[in-house]
Structure formats: C-alpha cells, structure tokens
C-alpha cells in the first residue's frame, strides 16, 4: 500500500480528489521504467537515491512517487546462489571481532573460508535486506499502461485504507461486495432509495461508532477492485487525509483495474442447477444474480431470475437457501416475506426445512435432497400460473 505521503491528491474544501494517472503520463512512465532497468543489479537504496533527484522529463511529483512504489513492488531481487547473506554476516562479523588483522584481510579470509569470490562479499553482505536488496528485472517488464493501471488502483486503495466510513450506490454484483464486506468483519447496512434507484450500502466496522478510526481501512480497500465488476457504482468515503476527514468520491469511470473475475457460482449446488436448467427451461431466460430485493434494512439476493422468452412480464425469482440453523432459516424466511415478492420460490434442504412453510404462505417452497431437481423446479415455476 502507498503511504499517505505518496497519494497524489488535490484538496478542494473538504473534498480530496484523487489525481489518477492518464495516457498523458505514459511518456514519463516509460522513462521511469527505463530508470529501473538501468539499476538492475544495484542495491535498491541507490535507485531510491537516484529517484529522489530530477528526471530527464518533468513528471508530477506525487504521481511519480506512487508509480515508483508500484515498480519497486513489481521488481524482483537477486538471490545469491553461493551463500545465504545471513550466514555470510555471521561468519564475517565474528571473524572481524576475533581478529586483529586489517579489515581488508578479514574480508579476504572470510571469502576464502566460505568459498565465495572476494569481490562479491561486499555486494552480497546485505542483499537480502529490503533497503539493500539487489534489483532484478521481473520476467515480464510492465508496460506504461499496466503500470498506470496498477498505480491508479494503488492510489485509490491507499486513500480507502484511511477510510472511516464508506457508502456505495451500486448496480450489479452487489452480492459479492456484501459477502466480502461481511467476511472482512464489516457491518453492512442498506438504505433503499426512492424511484427504484439502486440501494445504498453503508460499510463500516463495529468500533467505528465511537471514533473515526481507520482500523477497517484495509477491509474497505479490498472491496475496491471488486467494485470494478459492478455495472455501475458510486462510492463516497470519509478518509483521514492530511490530518482531517475528507470526502473521497469514486465511480465506474474511475480508472481502477478490476480484480480477478468473481466466481460465477457460490456453490456446486447452484452450478449444477444452472447446468440442469439449460435442458429443462428452454422457454425461459435464466438470469444469474438479478438485482437484490430490499427488505427493510436488509438486502436479499435471489440466485436466479426466470424470465419467459415470449412473455417477458412473466418473472419468477428463485432463491437457494444455504442455511445452517433453524434460527437462521426462520430469519431468512421472515426477511423474504417482508420483501413482498410473491413470485419467489425458495429451495430448501428437506432435512432442515421442517415447520417453516405454514408461517409464510406467500412463499413457495421446494424441498430438495442433495441437489435441486430442475424438472420439479420448472413444474413449480409453471404451476405459479403467472
């Protein structure tokens, strides 16, 4: 992560605008990459010193520092095959402490004992330590475009690392964001918006109630590359930057490189059902992960939306209840009932779903054992009479 001092930002009142890199920065990025190439085999410290000076082509100071950080991260280090530097240090410094000989003589003797070339001794002495490591070009040297993308992601994440609270309006892929947020220990509350606008997710940690803490910054920053997979999003964060809480705004136009594509299915159960439906639901479009339903302060994520090919107004939502306890199941049904979605079929594990149907008659239940029977599900869908 970039340190705060290396985040390129412009401050306007209480807002911090992240200064992302664009195509106009490619020329100096190319020079920066060339500068790294020039220092191959040299200690990182020397390269850092060189980078502190001016470049042949003017480059915005903070952007350049941020990009250099990313390059340092991408570059490898040289590992001497002949000896472990820690062993070299132990032998050399012990010999030196016990010998009255000249320092140069001690170096030669140590090199001889360890059977390493004397001229390499000084070079390898600290080459495993972060600031002294010997720079080694990565197998695939990054292009200016790749470096730009990586730097922009790092800039946005570094700002979010200092976030006390985050709220996001998002369309598409909300489930993955909520799931990841919860996995990271964040509280996720949902605010429904009028006129069918996308719901707003507010994300923060439990302790954030008491202080504007950046304790949850790492968890919040981890969400960012996943957001790039949403169809649309607007993120507002309060970040502690330059000693004050400042508003940071990001949306789908922010040049942020996406993370790995999220897995299409949560479980094998869903995947198998989707495969089976290919054969048994030929008259229906099967849409994975449709928009979430709002139920009070919660969001419900149906797994599938069935939309008839000829009569698109015929729509049925299907939810696979992957539950573990009766309490959890009851709570889930209560929320589903509150969502007031009449065309919703819930597939429940037959062994655990006892006694819940009577309480929520508006819901259609399909018990299953092991896997969901696609034929039985289609019969249920057709049987809704819509």
């Amino acid at each position, binding site marked *: 992560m970039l340190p705060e*001092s290396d985040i390129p930002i412009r401050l306007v009142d209480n807002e911090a605008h992240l200064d992302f890199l664009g195509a106009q920065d490619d020329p100096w990025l190319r020079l920066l990459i060339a500068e790294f190439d020039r220092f191959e085999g040299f200690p990182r*410290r020397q390269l850092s010193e060189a980078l*502190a000076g001016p470049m042949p082509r003017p480059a915005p*100071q903070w952007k350049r520092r941020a990009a250099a950080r990313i390059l340092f991260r991408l570059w490898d280090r040289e590992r001497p095959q002949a000896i472990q530097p*820690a062993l070299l*240090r*132990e032998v*050399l*410094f*012990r010999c*030196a*402490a*016990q010998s009255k000989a000249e*320092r140069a003589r*001690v*170096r030669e003797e140590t090199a001889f004992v360890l059977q390493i070339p004397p001229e390499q001794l*000084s070079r390898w*002495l*600290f080459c495993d*330590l*972060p*600031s*002294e490591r010997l720079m080694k070009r990565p197998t695939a040297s990054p292009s200016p475009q790749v470096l730009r993308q990586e730097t922009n992601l790092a800039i946005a994440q570094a700002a979010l690392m200092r976030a006390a609270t985050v709220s996001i309006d998002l369309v598409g892929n909300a489930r993955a964001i909520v799931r990841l947020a919860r996995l990271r*220990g964040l*509280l996720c*509350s949902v605010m429904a918006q009028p006129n069918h606008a996308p719901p707003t997710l*507010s994300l*923060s*940690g*439990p*302790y954030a*109630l*008491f*202080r504007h*803490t950046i*304790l949850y910054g790492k968890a919040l920053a981890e969400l960012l590359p996943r957001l790039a997979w949403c169809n649309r999003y607007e993120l507002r964060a309060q970040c502690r930057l*330059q*000693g004050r809480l400042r508003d940071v705004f990001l949306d789908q136009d922010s040049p942020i490189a996406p993370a790995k594509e999220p897995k299409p299915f949560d479980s094998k159960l869903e995947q198998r059902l989707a495969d089976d439906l290919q054969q048994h639901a030929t008259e229906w479009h099967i849409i994975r992960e449709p928009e979430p339903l709002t139920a009070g*302060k919660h969001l419900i994520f149906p797994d599938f939306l069935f939309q008839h090919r000829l009569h698109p107004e015929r729509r049925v939502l299907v939810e696979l209840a992957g539950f573990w306890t009766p309490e959890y199941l009851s709570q889930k049904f209560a929320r589903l009932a509150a969502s007031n979605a009449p065309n919703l079929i819930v597939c429940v594990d037959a062994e655990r779903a006892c006694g819940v149907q009577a309480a929520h008659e508006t819901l259609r239940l399909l018990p299953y054992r092991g896997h969901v029977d696609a034929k039985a599900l289609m019969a249920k869908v057709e049987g809704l009479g819509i």
Partner: protein
Amino acid sequence: MRLLFDRGTIVLHDLPSSLDPSIIPGVLWDPRIAAWRAPGRLAYPLASELRRRDVRLSDRPHPQLSPPTGFQPVALRPYQQAAFDAWHEAGRRGIVVLPTGSGKTRIAFAALAATRTPALCLVPTRALLQQWANELGKYYGGPIGCLGDGQRSLAPITVATFASAYRNMALLGDRFGLLIVDEAHHFGNARHDEALDMAIAPLRLGLTATPPAPGPTLQRLSTLIGPVRFELKISELPEDSLAPFDRITQPLWLEPEEQRTYDDLRTLYRGAFAAFRITHPVAKWDDFIRIAANTDSGRRAIAAWRSCQRLLAFPRCKQQALATWLQRLSDRKTLIFVADNDTAYRVAREHLLMPLTCEIGRRERSVMLEHFRSGKIRALVSAQVLNEGLDVPDADVGIVVAGRGGEREHTQRVGRLLRPSDGKRALVVELVVQQSTEVQNADKRWSRLVA
C-alpha cells in the same frame, strides 16, 4: 439482560424497559444494528453500573482463556515493590514510570504472577517481542503465545507487538483479563489507541520511562490504562540500581566544503520555514512538511532539510572519530547509535560490525545478541532497534553518532548501558558537530536526562 462482545465492542441485548442506556457514559445507539453499543474497554464498568441499577445480567463478557498457572516467585527490589504496591492498591490499573534499566519488566512479571488472569503483554517492536517471551520463560512454566514477527499463537500469557494487537483486537479483545503495555507512552495519541479501547481487560498496567507531558495525550492514556500511580526519576533511585556512567561529548567540525554545503542547505530551508511561520504562526514542523510538499519551493526546502540530516548523520569528521573510538575501546562491549539504517550499513561495512536494524530477521537478531552476550562479537550498530527496551546487559559503552528521535530517544539509548553489574562503569560518547543544530540538541537531551 445480556452484554455480548462483538468485535471489540459490547452490544447490549434484551434491555429492560426501565433502563435508558443513553445516560450511561460511553454507551451509544448503533443504528446499523438497532442496538446499544459500548467500546470493549467499558465491559466491566458497564456491568458494575448495571448492577448498581439493579439490572440482572444473564450473560456478560469475561476473559475466554483459562488462567495461567506455573509462576515462579518474582523477587523485587524495594522501589520495584513500592511501584507494584502502588499499582495494586489503586485497583490494578495505571502507569508506572521508572528510568530505563531499572527493571520495569520485573514489575510486569510480578503483576502477571499476582493477578493470575490471562494476560496480553503489548510491546512496541518485534525485537522486544522475542525478548519478553524469553524473559517470561524464566518465571513462567506454561505456554507463551506470540503475535507478531511472523508468529501467531495464543496462550493464557501472550506477547504481541502493538501493530499485531491493533490489527487483531477485534478477535482478541475478550480473551484476556490483564493488559500490560510496555513503553506505554506510544499510546494516547490516537495512533494505535483502538488496541486498548477494544479490549475488555479490567486490569491494566502501563510501563514507561518517558511519560507524555501533562495534556490531552496523558489524559487519553489515563483513560485507556489508568493514571500514573508511581514515578521515580534517575536521581531518586538507590545508588546501586543503575550503573554509574561517564559522559564524553566530543566536539567535531565539518570540513570546509561540507560546512559550506550545510550552511547553504540550512539557509534554504530556514528561509522557507520562517516564511511559512508568518502565514501559519501556530503551525508545527509536521504541518510545514505537509504543506510545503505541495509547492516546488516547499519541496526544495524539504529536500534541503533532508540533505542536512544526511550530511550530519555521518560526515567525514564522525567517520574518523568513530574509527578512533572503536580502536581505543576495542576490548569493551560497545553499542553504536546512528540515525538511520543506511548509516548503520555503512558503519557495518567499514568497520565490520554487526548492524541490528529493523530489517534483520528474528532468528539472526537472536543469534547476534547471543554472540554479543558471550563476547564473540564486541560491538553492535543500530539506528532504532536498540532505542527501546531491548536488553543488552553487558554493554558498557555507547557511542552516539547521530539520532533523530530527540530527548526521549536519547534517554532510552543511554538506558541501554545502565543495567547494573559488579564494578560496571558505563561510558557514553557523543559525537557532536559544532556550528550545527546538533549542539543545541545535545544540550537539550542531556538536560532532560539529568532532570
């Protein structure tokens, strides 16, 4: 009613209708979960308050780990015993202030043995993590957990670095009944304070040689750990508590060309700083650095200041003086304090001395400290690692080449040399470049140490 621990906080469940939690200090309504919530630190005070109001609690947080057993008795010197008693009598919450080298850790071990509750010991650095675990092993036969420096094990007695505790307190907060905070002065300034605020431990002991000056930081520290319960200055310690020491300040002069460069650089950044102070009369140096970084002239000023620091870190006069001192003191165990890692490696390469920096791994550090103890190596050079807490018992000479941390750092550095042993007389050599900021800084450091 139930009080449940939730990731560093306490959530109030099943409230009686007669209770209005908003009047209890620290309890806030959390609209995200539609419940009342308090920081973990208030778990016990909250339970007491509810009991006082005749509210029956069916469940409340308590330390989840089993109590440690297998402590050896810890012998304390009279002043250590007095410090321990003061803390104990004050409800086992608060801070003990003792000079470096006077055995604060012993008091912590006595607290662990006396309270017999699962305890988390917080230390500032990875180097101290290992040292605490090793020292604890001499008094405690049970397993010792470690969090930090690549280790992740929990036990009724666990040692953690500040950074690890900060990251993990949401999970650890309800495991321990006693918190021991070594070098407690690092808290109170909001940087890692969450680590203390999210723990339920009702018993807390802070240890420091350099408490913050009275003000908001000390006030916050009092809230998190407790007030200062006992304080003793170097001059108040019994004579045999610390080794006596001699101080030599060696004045040095930059070479003419270095002096010219230094003066030019200093003029540049002082001019920029003076101009800044006109527009920002109450601003501090940190504010200057932050604001100056936004303009070309400001960046030039900061660069000039950094160059000055680099120049003073190890100019030719210091190189020569260090070589002379090392030759003269070759039979004594010496710690060399420098300003940064780069200088530590330079000194190491030039004089073939082992550097002890934050970049050196745990195993190698332990091996080298052991070699130092056994006399296989005679000197260590360090920028920061030896500044705080690390116990190097036999070292009796300290050469201060340069520093960045001001008076507090100096107090800690000198303290490394003052652990007493038979016939020991420590020597502190300070290399001070004349006609530079070092002169004033050196005077200030010593006046604070003596005070």
